[in-house]
């Protein structure tokens, strides 16, 4: 237990020094944030999920993401609110809390030039959500458009973990 706490403190310190958000409140995702997220997670598998409150399929699947996080609390999951109808931070935070995702690494789009933010993630992405990117340790990406089946995400995480060993 103690070891875990120490690891958490170290990890938090590391993230703090990198200027990145870990658990807790939504952090603003602006120009360049995508690059810094990739950098912070470089060399490790990463799951990135884009969502928004105005998107009914997103709201429906969010509790499943909460369950994934509950089953794998240390899973490298980054949730990014990229709603095309911008959400209020308070509303988004409340919903993350309700979905069991307050402890994930949470971001929210904070630049009205959303095309530029999206271009940094994927030049072809025109904003459709939900969208999930499974990024392997070597940077290889798998894109899931629409709701992501929890089993697919969990299986992918297991495969990546096995590959890391």
């Amino acid at each position: 237990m103690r070891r875990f706490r120490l690891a958490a403190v170290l990890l938090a310190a590391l993230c703090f020094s990198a200027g990145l958000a870990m658990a807790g409140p939504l952090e603003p995702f602006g120009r360049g944030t995508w690059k810094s997220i990739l950098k912070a997670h470089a060399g490790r598998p990463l799951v990135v999920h884009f969502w928004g409150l105005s998107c009914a399929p997103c709201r429906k699947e969010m509790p499943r993401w909460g369950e994934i996080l509950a089953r794998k609390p240390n899973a490298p999951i980054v949730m990014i609110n990229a709603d095309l109808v911008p959400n209020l931070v308070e509303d988004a935070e409340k919903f993350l809390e309700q979905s069991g995702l307050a402890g994930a690494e949470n971001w929210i789009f904070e630049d009205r030039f959303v095309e530029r933010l999206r271009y940094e993630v994927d030049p072809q992405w025109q904003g459709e959500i939900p969208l999930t990117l499974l990024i392997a340790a070597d940077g290889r990406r798998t894109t899931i458009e629409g709701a992501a089946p929890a089993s697919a995400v969990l299986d992918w995480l297991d495969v990546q973990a096995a590959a890391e060993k």
Partner: protein
Amino acid sequence: MSHALALIFGTLALVAGVPAQAQMTHEHKAAETCTDLALACAASVTPTFAADGTLWIVARTSDRVFVAKSADRGKSFSEPVAVTPEPMPLDTGPDSRPKIVVDRKGRVVVAFAVRDKKFKGRVFVSRSSDKGKSFSPPDPITASDESQRFETLTLDADGRVFAAWIDKRNRAAARETGPEKGEAPKGAALAFAWSGDHGATFSEARIAQDQTCECCRIAVAFAGPGRPVVVFRNIFEGSVRDHAIVTFADRETPGPVHRVSTDDWAIESCPHHGPSLAVAKNGTYHVAWFTKGRARQGLFYARSSDAGATFSDPLPIGRPETAPGRPSLLSVGGTAYLAWKEFDGAVTSITVMTSHDDGAHWSTPRAIATTSEDSDHPILVGDGRRAYLSWQAREDGYRLLPLGDAS
């Protein structure tokens, strides 16, 4: 807007005693505080030409809708006139924008959508019978409050106003009584209503097609008097969100629904990326749309010479690497125009191409306007003789650019 500026604005708001609720918690909210009734503050601008050649625009900030007009093709505008007397929670999604029609006598009808905290929409209508000097208090377009969005207004030849929008009343009803009680059915519906009194009242809303995509703008044009044509993202079997078209047989009778293209985009998501439609004088339908289907991905164009029953093979538009989207079609005289948006990571450009043979062949695409910050969708608008690009960009302001035949 920078954090520093946001902070300054926040501080100013405090000093001025603005209620805490009006202060936005984050940067993009602060940037949205440009709520002046000024073209420079407009997030979207929708144009229309009146028969006398006056250019009218309806624009929205984050919470207000206003109208202005220009007698000199957009070089200068009249003082903006508020349509919303008070701030309203406008639908600020990318495919949402206020609409405007102006009849031969200068009577104006404006429609726009608001939404509540749960993103349930409501369409409001306001009108002016004094040539835009003042507007009536906005009224809901329909009694139902089961969510309406993506409204359109189109003027028929006899001055009647055709309104169509995406409506969730059937979905609400199905939730109560459907076989899967408690489970909301997919999508929404295409609803329509008519006004014979210049927007003062609208007929009871009717559903032209159930189970349409709930989060994309729709496109409307007339095939002839009393015969609207509507293109919309439909939900086909298997949650396939491809485009469909319906031509009305008469004002009250939606005709059969035809498929524009089998893109096979099976997805549970919200594209917020609707189609464009133009109907040429000779009856040719021009349609452009965005898809990420299994059959094709990107922006496409097709035409129909049999009133929408069948369409030509989809023609890919733009350069795939710069994400072409947000199409706008227009037919003026014998020429068809297609404009769209591309973004290369630094610069957004509006590209236009033209066809003189009903869309069989198109000119080489040409970028005619650019901007390096955020911008509205491009809209093509005609005054009966010429075609223009209407485009609002944050940094560069509003532009109305005449298009040459060879644009």
